[in-house]
């Protein structure tokens, strides 16, 4: 349980060795670099260009990923790559591939545009297909004037009736909803009159495309062009798919380039002269020897210097815990890192977290499921550090779930082993609630003790009495009041605690005794927050109840299904598995979130000092591969 102790390291070496040194530091992954000296070095001018290249590479990776020959199952680990392989990448080759992919994408975008235009033209021609004349033929009629366009059906019938028996002919071509596309001829003598009447009837003039060819011939030509474009598109897709073969190289190049970029960021922090280069940073104390040895091996001329943090310097915070506790660091960092002068609560928090998680999932069957599946998943996926930590947290919670599930006697919603059961949440809920509040009090007191420990460590034992033990006296005293045998002792304990709070809570604010008393009263009002804090642990009961009852309902439903023959049995089995998986998933998420909340608000609220800056060493942080032999 600790915040890892840091040393300030400075490295002085030949400027020409700087790049090689940073490569080594990146592999070791243990130094958090800082700006060296007063003026920062030349800003990474190539940063923007590299960023742009990374962006284009990422685009190509996403675009080509669907052409990947063999899809990687999400359960299998990322491909492993050695750090040496990252050093020997071919940027030009990869960028040539990216350019090719970009060119193909542009072509294909062009093609799509032309195809859309052609389809639109075909659509516009469709109503005119019954027309067997070309536009030129229509225009060349000598004794009659041709009209083409669309008109409402109702208006058309009236129009036809009005012009019955006069030198006008109307030919209906195509009907589209309530519109009729028509071709009409009017003799030159009535041309003007007919045109006026058409306008009045709401006729929309429109013409099949200009030039030679009947609409049908034109459409065939367009369709042919469209087919050719589709062939072209297929060819482009084929070329794109062939580029899919380049994916492994592209991924490697992406990782190498991003490693390059983080390195050049570190390089920009160096203070340089014409021939020398000075780098400064933080390194965990335990790694200084190894680091010095590896650097000296490669750069005998380099000067290394380690020193403890000076007054006023704030080293970055890295949490270091024993392997049992280490996964729970992710819970702490999910809130905020502790102040470098504060305390790492991971180890104290871990048993409470697992216990609360188990109480909220509270189904031993789900617990067994988690305890079996998670180790298999970790073995199969070889997940990255953060995901692995999360999975181990869930594994610990799963084991606690088996314990609590047995006490609740809930096994996949069945009350299977009554001899193990201690609690019955549905029919006799009072004992369960008492356990919840009791665990809550324990948790909160643990928080107070952490605060007291910090006060002792900082040489302020009286503060521990004023701020932490006074509250414990008050709360325990109030608790003892509930039992007749201990009520007298409880009364005096509570009064003593309250007295201390009343007199000392305002000590930092003012020297005026009256003002202090007022602050003390305000602090004493904080007893209400203790009530709400304790009540908050009732969620342990509520969430556990929810899992159990829903599991029970699932089993009842399945019982009804399986009553009706073989088909019912099959459906019942499917429902049983699916519904219990759903219930488990929802409750595992809920339990995780609420267990976190109980730490962040109730527990941390009693002592935690946040505000540390994270330790971010120069290292590989690949997205598409695992770097295997980094150090």
């Amino acid at each position, binding site marked *: 349980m600790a915040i890892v102790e840091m040393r300030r390291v400075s490295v002085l070496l030949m400027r020409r060795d700087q790049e090689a040194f940073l490569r080594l530091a990146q592999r070791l992954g243990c130094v958090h670099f800082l700006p060296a000296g007063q003026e920062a070095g030349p800003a990474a001018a190539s940063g923007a260009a590299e960023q742009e290249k990374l962006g284009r590479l990422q685009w190509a990776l996403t675009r080509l990923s669907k052409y990947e020959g063999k899809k990687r199952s999400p359960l299998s680990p990322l491909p492993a790559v050695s750090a040496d392989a990252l050093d020997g990448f071919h940027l030009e080759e990869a960028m040539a591939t990216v350019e090719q992919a970009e060119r193909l994408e542009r072509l294909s975008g062009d093609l799509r545009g032309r195809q859309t235009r052609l389809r639109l033209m075909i659509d516009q021609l469709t109503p005119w297909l019954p027309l067997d004349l070309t536009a030129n033929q229509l225009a060349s009629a000598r004794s009659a004037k041709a009209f083409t366009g669309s008109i409402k059906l109702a208006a058309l019938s009236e129009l036809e009736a009005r012009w019955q028996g006069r030198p006008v002919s109307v030919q209906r071509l195509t009907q589209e909803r309530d519109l009729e596309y028509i071709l009409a001829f009017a003799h030159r003598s009535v041309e003007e009159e007919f045109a006026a009447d058409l306008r009045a009837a709401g006729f929309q003039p429109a013409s099949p495309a200009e030039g030679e060819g009947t609409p049908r011939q034109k459409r065939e030509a367009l369709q042919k062009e469209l087919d050719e474009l589709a062939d072209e598109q297929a060819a482009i897709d084929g070329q794109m798919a062939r580029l899919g073969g380049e994916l492994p190289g592209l991924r490697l190049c992406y990782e190498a380039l991003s490693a390059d970029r983080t390195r050049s960021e570190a390089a920009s922090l160096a203070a340089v002269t014409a021939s020398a280069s000075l780098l400064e940073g933080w390194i965990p104390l335990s790694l200084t020897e190894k680091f010095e040895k590896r650097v000296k091996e490669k750069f005998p001329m380099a000067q290394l210097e380690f020193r403890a943090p000076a007054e006023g310097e704030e080293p970055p915070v890295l949490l270091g815990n024993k392997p049992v506790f280490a996964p729970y660091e992710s819970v702490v960092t999910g809130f905020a890192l502790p102040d470098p002068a504060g305390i790492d609560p991971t180890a104290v928090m871990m048993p409470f977290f697992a216990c609360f998680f188990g109480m909220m999932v509270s189904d031993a069957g789900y617990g067994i499921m988690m305890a079996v599946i998670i180790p298999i998943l970790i073995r199969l996926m070889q997940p990255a550090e953060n995901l692995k930590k999360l999975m181990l947290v869930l594994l610990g919670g799963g084991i606690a779930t088996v314990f609590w599930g047995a006490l609740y006697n809930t096994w996949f919603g069945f009350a299977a082993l009554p001899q193990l059961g201690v609690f019955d949440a549905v029919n006799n809920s009072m004992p369960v609630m008492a356990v919840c509040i009791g665990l809550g009090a324990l948790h909160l007191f643990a928080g107070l003790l952490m605060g007291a420990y910090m006060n002792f460590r900082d040489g302020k034992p009286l503060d521990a009495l004023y701020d932490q033990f006074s509250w414990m006296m008050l709360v325990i005293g109030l608790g003892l009041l509930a039992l007749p045998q201990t009520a007298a002792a409880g009364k005096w304990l509570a009064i003593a605690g309250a007295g201390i709070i009343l007199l000392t809570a305002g000590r930092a604010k003012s020297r005026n005794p009256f003002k202090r008393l007022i602050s003390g009263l305000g602090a004493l009002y904080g007893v209400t927050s203790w009530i709400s804090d304790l009540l908050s642990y009732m*969620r342990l009961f*509520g969430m556990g*109840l929810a899992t159990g009852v829903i599991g029970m309902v699932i089993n009842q439903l399945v019982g009804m299904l399986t009553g009706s023959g073989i088909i019912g049995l099959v459906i019942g089995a499917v429902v049983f598995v699916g519904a219990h998986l759903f219930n488990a998933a929802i409750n595992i998420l809920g339990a995780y*979130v609420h267990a976190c*909340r109980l730490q962040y608000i109730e527990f941390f609220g009693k002592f935690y000092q946040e505000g540390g800056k994270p330790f971010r060493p120069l290292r590989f942080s690949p997205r598409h591969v695992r770097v295997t032999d980094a150090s």
Partner: protein
Amino acid sequence: MDINTLSLGQFLTFVAAALSVILAGWGSAKGVGLAGQTSAGVSTENPEVNSKLMVLQILPGTQGIYGFLIAVIILVNTGALGGNMAAVGVSQGLMYIGAVLPVALVGLLSAIHQGKVAAAGMLMVGQHPDMSGKAITMTVMVETYAVLALLASFLMVNAIKL
């Protein structure tokens, strides 16, 4: 259960169970829906945080589960789920309606408010993906009151003797 012999008390019991599912579920549907819209918006800007947003999105969904839970306990306690419903008097039926009010009304309102906090948290996560722990904590704060309402309803439902 014969429909012809259903008493007013039994009917009121069903009304209570229905209210619990309807109101709490309504709130959850609204809350999850609200959060889902924001999730879609934030994901278009920053697709990488999508999985973090998913957790935030389903948080307002628990109220619906709590409402369902109380309904099931009512049906179990009155034997309706076993198909052999006990005789429930009118006063007991009314007591069931009173008992579901906390989980139903607090569920309805807290789920909507939780959805709003979740949506705001998503915007925060979109900008600062490392703050998702804080966003989740803020969202879960709202849920406290739904849990308390669930407990109150549960205690009241269990206190009704048939």
